């Protein structure tokens, strides 16, 4: 990766985080999970996925499914920066005049499928990958899931089926931010050793730092990782990444900031002092 590419990715990811912060007011959004996968989503759309705003309906595009759903501000922020939607459209967040709500909607160009109920889009991605195999295409299906989402049985059911069907055009990305809703994953339903679990299910797995563009460049090289096997990337991330006042805080999963807090958080993103947040947080949603 050239320094210029790295700089461009860093700048884009910062602007995406600014969009996320702006969407965290007047009703709020799932900020922690959005910030953890912002770098991963930006990297995917800039350097991995064979898709552009002009090819969102092209059957030969790569498909990317956002299964964890909560992190849709990161996806929409990325879409706004890369020209899939107008930046202005993000101001419609939670307005009845548009379809920008707390989970993905296909009303927005680039969104492959709606999600919100966890453990669904691996199976939908399997269907797409199966069809690409039948038709002999070279495109791929990517599914972004949360680590907490791995509590759902259908994730493991889907992993069995994908391996049985030798779907090496399927890539599962785990946003391993070590939190699920209000708890640390290892405290509630431990997932480790996660990489070995995937391997035991017949997947080819790589781990990476989900905030390092150089790390992700290495991790995504040479897909599929093994011919005949589905690929998984476990991206280690930090929930709330970019905002020390929110990072790794169980109670900052969902954030409904005041307008003043938005300004503080935007300054914090750019290296300013840590914000003091007093607005409501929701422990359970």
């Amino acid at each position, binding site marked *: 990766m050239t320094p210029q590419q790295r700089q461009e990715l860093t700048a884009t990811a910062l602007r995406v985080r600014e969009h996320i912060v702006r969407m965290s007011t007047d009703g709020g959004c799932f900020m922690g999970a959005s910030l953890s996968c912002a770098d991963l989503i930006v990297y995917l759309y800039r350097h991995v996925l064979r898709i552009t705003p002009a090819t969102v309906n092209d*059957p030969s595009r790569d498909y990317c499914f956002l299964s964890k759903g909560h992190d849709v501000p990161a996806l929409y922020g990325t879409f706004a920066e890369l020209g899939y939607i107008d930046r202005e459209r993000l101001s419609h967040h939670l307005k009845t005049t548009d379809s920008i709500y707390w989970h993905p909607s*296909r009303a927005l160009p680039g969104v*492959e*499928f*709606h999600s919100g*109920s966890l453990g*669904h*889009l*691996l*199976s*939908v*991605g*399997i*269907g*797409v*990958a*199966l*069809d*690409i*195999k*039948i*038709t002999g295409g070279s495109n791929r*299906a990517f599914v972004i899931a949360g680590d907490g989402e791995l509590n759902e049985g*259908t994730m493991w*059911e*889907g992993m*069995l*089926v994908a391996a*049985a*069907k030798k779907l090496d055009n399927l890539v599962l990305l785990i946003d391993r931010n070590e939190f699920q809703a209000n708890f640390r994953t290892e405290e509630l339903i431990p997932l480790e050793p996660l990489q070995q679990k995937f391997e035991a299910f017949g997947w080819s797995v790589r781990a990476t730092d989900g905030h390092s563009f150089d790390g992700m460049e290495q991790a995504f090289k040479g897909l599929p990782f093994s011919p005949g096997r589905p690929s998984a990337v476990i991206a280690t991330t930090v929930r709330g990444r970019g905002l020390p006042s929110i990072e790794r805080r169980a109670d900052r999963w969902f954030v409904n900031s005041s307008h003043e807090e938005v300004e503080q958080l935007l300054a914090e993103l750019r290296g300013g002092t840590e914000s003091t947040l007093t607005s409501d947080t929701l422990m359970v949603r």
Partner: protein
Amino acid sequence: MTYEGLLYRTAQADDRLVVMTAENRAAIRGLPVRLGDRFIDVGIAEQTMVGAAAGLALRGRIPIVHALAAFLTLRAFEFARTDVGIGNLPVKLVGDVPGFLSEANGPTHQAIEDIALMRGIPSMNVFCPADVEELVAGMPHVIDHRMPWYVRYNAAPATVRHTAPFAIGKAEQLAAGRDVTILAFGFLLREAHAAATLLSARGVTVRLLNLRTLKPIDEEAILNAAAETRLLVTVEDHFETGGLTSIVAELLMRNRTTVRVLPIALPDRWFKPALLPDVLEYEGFTGARIAERIAAAL
């Protein structure tokens, strides 16, 4: 023609068709070899199957999806609702051994709330063939229709002579009468027909309607029956809640119509597991028992 033969012929003519199963191949044993990679068996994984069917439909396919009705509509319900239903995708869910057809399997296998569940999904439609003739006549319409469908699979031999060509949302009138209207669907049409014959012999004139699709349902035929006959009888191997009886009640209410209705449905309990003739006898769903229940209500 058999169901399997119909699917094969349709798949040959239309390469959008793919056949899926959760290791339930009873009705489609010959298709794996004939369809090759367009036959997909995911193993005992109904949820993944229905989600994958949604993915295939996103790519332009028309998946015909097979599993036992209980597991397809219950285990995979949220996938049918959330992926197929919200997505409004042309996935066709085919549930095997629905209602009494699960015979001696016991309550785990009794799909007797399947119609309530499936019709409660906004974009989903429901086809309940009376026999193999109707199944084969109706499936091309279901496959061509651009919305999702639930098919209450029934490939029993026909016991009535069908008089009207299949049309979605159109009931078939098999007997004319002014005293009673029997509303029936699925394999119980056979028993309803027997009941109508018995009642006719006793001088009770019976209008017999074979509903074919429960969603959309032939509202006009039911409202006409409500206006023109003295008693409506709903016959269904389904809980009284949420199935045909509920559909009729909702329809009458919407149209500010009152009429006497006799529900012959399953009360709030599972039916006695046994072989089909014994189930019908035990639960009171043979032609003779249906006729008795109607005669008593007149």
